[in-house]
């Protein structure tokens, strides 16, 4: 049995760089031991949009990022035995698998064994009222019948099974992001499903890798305070995980970025609530005893992840229609710009109060007060506000006419508003609202299919 497995990150989100995996794959190709490349490309919203796509066309509904991310490395991975695990199957993992097979043919690569993990899709398994009764932290689903998508976060076991069956590529829909690493580790290091500390270690490895460059200097740099060399060619992370659950995280030699105590600790706590109880499908991870030690340049060792038995319930994300987000912007610059922007905001407020009194409108002055702003619809610009202000209005409703009216009112400022109003842009974006539910485990029926069986 191998003592060590290698897992590289090929992408940390759907909008990630297409060439991120290239240097990781070259580093993995030189490693001695079982090697895996993981892709996390499935935001809540992405999955719901893919579900809509699938209903329109049964051959679609997988992640739109999949092909551009796999194309640069697929042939190389197949040629040197690096196995790929990704959740880019989204709402249609089987269609994704067929597309990957076609991509491999087009690249002249050897035909891969592709396994599909399904069983996360809960649409139809529970009624809308049953989902609503299981919602946590909110009441979005109460009374809603129009469920667009409902997906359980599956664990790592089906991914490990797929690899046990010889898959070169494992395509999943919704699984816990960390399972994309834990699955390969269960397979390669033969960890038991009740070995809580090792499951915790594998979950920690997945958690560190799942956001790609956020471990290696991305989402980190702050010039003069936290300098990162070579960020334009930042290396994506690689975890070298030992059979005992200890690990070293690093990045490809010669790549940009940095891996040190600070980059690793920031990412270790990213999106964590109680650090003693990070809930995953396979284990509850306790990070409070973890040691983070720099052992060399861009090499950080982590030990001490502890695990507790897996939670009784599984999390699911349920999406419903969120209406339309409308955003419109206009600029005022030069002498007295702040006063003109404030007048413009007051005009829009007065007209909307009469025409769409129910609509909540947010006003921002980009460059003066926006992302830190309170979000109410008054606009109090600070003294000494800049003289180049981008005024922004936003509203959301399932009543499209009201949202469009706001955009019309902002555009009308060109001729009927304060002096020098410039550069109106308006956007309408369909929105999906998402709720989290806790679902009994009996609803989880993961299925593993090898493509030639299912094709």
């Amino acid at each position, binding site marked *: 049995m191998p003592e060590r497995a290698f897992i590289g990150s090929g992408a940390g989100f759907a909008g990630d760089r297409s060439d991120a995996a290239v240097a990781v794959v070259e580093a993995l190709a030189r490693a001695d031991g079982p090697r895996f490349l993981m892709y996390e490309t499935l935001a809540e*919203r992405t999955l719901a949009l893919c579900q809509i796509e699938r209903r329109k066309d049964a051959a679609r509904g997988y992640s739109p990022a999949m092909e551009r991310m796999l194309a640069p490395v697929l042939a190389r991975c197949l040629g040197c035995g690096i196995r790929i695990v990704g959740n880019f199957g989204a709402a249609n993992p089987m269609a994704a698998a067929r597309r990957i097979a076609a991509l491999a043919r087009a690249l002249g690569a050897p035909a891969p064994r592709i396994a599909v993990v399904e069983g996360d899709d809960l649409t139809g398994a529970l009624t809308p009222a049953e989902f609503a009764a299981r919602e946590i932290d909110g009441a979005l689903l109460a009374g809603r019948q129009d469920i667009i998508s409902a997906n359980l976060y599956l664990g790592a076991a089906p991914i490990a099974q797929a690899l046990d069956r010889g898959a070169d590529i494992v395509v999943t829909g919704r699984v816990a992001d960390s399972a994309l690493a834990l699955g390969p580790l269960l397979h390669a290091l033969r960890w038991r499903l009740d070995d809580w500390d090792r499951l915790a270690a594998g979950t920690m490895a997945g958690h560190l890798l799942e956001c790609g460059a956020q471990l290696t200097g991305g989402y980190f740099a702050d010039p003069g305070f936290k300098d990162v060399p070579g960020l334009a060619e930042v290396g994506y992370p690689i975890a070298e995980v030992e059979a005992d659950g200890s690990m070293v995280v690093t990045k490809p030699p010669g790549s940009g970025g940095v891996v040190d105590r600070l980059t690793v600790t920031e990412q270790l706590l*990213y*999106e964590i609530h109680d650090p003693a109880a990070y809930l995953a499908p396979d284990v509850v991870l306790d990070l409070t005893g973890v040691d983070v030690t720099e052992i060399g340049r861009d090499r950080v060792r982590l030990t001490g992840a502890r695990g507790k038995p897996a939670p009784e319930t599984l999390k699911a994300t349920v999406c419903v229609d969120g209406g339309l987000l409308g955003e419109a912007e206009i600029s005022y610059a030069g002498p007295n710009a702040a006063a003109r922007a404030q007048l413009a905001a007051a005009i829009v407020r007065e007209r909307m109060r009469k025409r769409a009194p129910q609509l*909540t409108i947010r006003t921002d002055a980009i460059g003066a007060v*926006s*992302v830190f*702003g309170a979000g109410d619809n008054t606009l109090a610009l600070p003294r000494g506000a800049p003289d180049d202000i981008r005024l922004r209005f*936003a509203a959301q409703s399932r009543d499209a006419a009201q949202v469009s009216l706001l955009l019309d009112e902002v555009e009308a400022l060109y001729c009927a508003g304060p002096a020098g109003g410039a550069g109106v842009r308006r956007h309408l974006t369909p929105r999906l609202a998402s709720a989290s539910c806790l679902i009994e485990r009996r609803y989880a029926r993961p299925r593993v299919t090898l493509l030639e069986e299912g094709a």
Partner: protein
Amino acid sequence: MPVPLHDIANARAGDKGNRLNIALVCRDPKHYAAIASQVTAERVAQAFAARQPTRVTRYDLPKLAAFNFVLDDVLEGGVNASLGLDGHGKSLSFLLLAITVDLYPDNR
């Protein structure tokens, strides 16, 4: 002389629904005690008062020389509902880093 946390610590924001977490990591572990005594959940709640958090919890991680702040209901409903530009709250780590700390409170 109070210094902003930005001079001595790192912060990283993450979101889950309408809940924000901000990890605060000491660049030098020697500053852990001063931050622990002064950057309380109450002070963080004050710094975020405009967003009206319903609860702020601080988790202490002495082995990591770090803290994890969890702020409930500060993201305008979260990334799928917010009208603001930063529905994830990714910029808000720097709101935390503006809090000041007196590194030598006993020498006053």
